[in-house]
């Protein structure tokens, strides 16, 4: 009878990847550094820090998560990875997050080339 063990595909060492492509300990300048998605953004969320009540609703709602939390609970946006989905602006109970076209900021963020 054919032994299905013979089917096992050897994977070259330089292409080895963990099961499911899982990325251990994502962190700034870590493994995910090579996949910035900020370049996908068309509208940028801008937080009015004076009106922000630090309720952290946006921090919970961000699907990425790209809302960065400071020690004083003030929030900012990680522009390297934020795709500009706008969930934060949508959930903000005091509407202190506005959506501004990315073209208005030309030059202030180094735009990464997308991997694809």
């Amino acid at each position, binding site marked *: 009878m054919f032994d299905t063990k013979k089917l*096992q*595909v050897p994977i070259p060492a330089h292409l080895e990847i963990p099961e499911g*492509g899982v990325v*251990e*300990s994502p*962190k700034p300048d870590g493994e995910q550094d090579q*996949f910035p998605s900020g370049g996908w953004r068309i509208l940028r969320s801008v937080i009015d820090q004076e009106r922000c009540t630090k309720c952290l609703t946006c921090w919970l709602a961000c699907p990425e998560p790209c809302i960065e939390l400071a020690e004083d609970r003030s929030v900012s946006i990680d522009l390297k990875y934020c795709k500009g989905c706008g969930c934060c602006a949508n959930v903000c109970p005091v509407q202190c997050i506005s959506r501004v076209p990315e073209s208005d900021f030309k030059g202030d963020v180094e735009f990464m080339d997308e*991997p694809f």
Partner: protein
Amino acid sequence: MPKKFIPGLAAAANAAVQADVDVISSYPIRPYTGLMIQLSQAVANGDLDAEFVHGEGEHGQLAIVHGASLAGARTMTGSSGVGVTYPMEVYSPISGDRCPVQMVIADRTLDPPGDFGQEHTDALSTKDQGWLLGWASLPQEVYDNTLIYYRVGEDPKVLLPQMNCHDGYFVSHIANWVNIGEQSQVDEFLPPYKAQRPLDPLRPVGHGPQIYANQGPALEATRFNAIWGAREVIQQAVKEYNEIFKRDVDPFVELYHMDDAEIAIFIQGCHAHTCKYAIDDLRKEGVKIGMVRPKWIRPFPSPEVAEALSKCKAVGVVETNNSFGASGYAGQLTPEVCAALVKGAVKVDKVPQVASFMAGLGGHPVKIEQFKFMAEILAKGAKGQFDKPTYWVDLECEVEM
């Protein structure tokens, strides 16, 4: 060991309670709903300590167990018919993220038209999503499979989700005697699930990342290796199951009178038991007929199927499913059987004649007379050639119900 007179879904629920599942997600569709009725009662009565979550539809239902499994939970879900095809998008991410979710499918005809009857197309349409997919033919087997599939899927060498399928109504809702193991036996057989990289705020990991195109082949090869490597794990798990539960479960295929069979019926699911009665009758008349029933569709038991069928002159593949326009001029199983017989590494001296029998569609029972009708056609095929590739048994051999 207690014996209960219960239908298939109650058998699955009994096994899930004993397996101490952590998260259950449901969305109603008949016939599989019986499973969730039992499990929600078990949670309400305090017999099972689990989160019971309702999806907003089957797509959300599968996404719930996907997330729960990533967090390290043993999960149970299920569906039937169009409820199996609606979450199609979520199946590959679950197997791609290597989450050993278990889904019970009590199969049902796809729409249109509305039909509550059983047909295998719903479950078989998920066979290319990287899940282990097996089929039970009796409530007892549903119970066995529920425990065995968790054990196999959660094995660190496998880490794949499992489709625990059986025939809707015929198995899901008709009671039969089921040996229920003692809790101590279940605990011995099935250790708690330990996720390798669970979602944990203290040890953050990212699942389902974007990859570069050159990482694709290696990532897909790991799933290929896992599902074929699962065969060894299945063999070992079934061996231990038989030892612990004092049972005699076949790991890959059920063979019936195949030792000297010249013609054979390849059939999946509950109608195999009717087929065996027909074979008993035919054997008394001197017809050398046998039966092969696959217990797995993924990984397909190709070596066992090839070995069993290669000795025959003619093989009839019973298709209780559709794949309109498929290469075998019938359903989804004919190409699988033919590939197992002719594909390279397996040595088959003379490939048998193969015909397909469309039977049991729409929940139509397949009767003993209809199996005898198939045997007549096979006997003619064994002498030379079939007069056509596919016979619609339900229509060509009408019997009174």
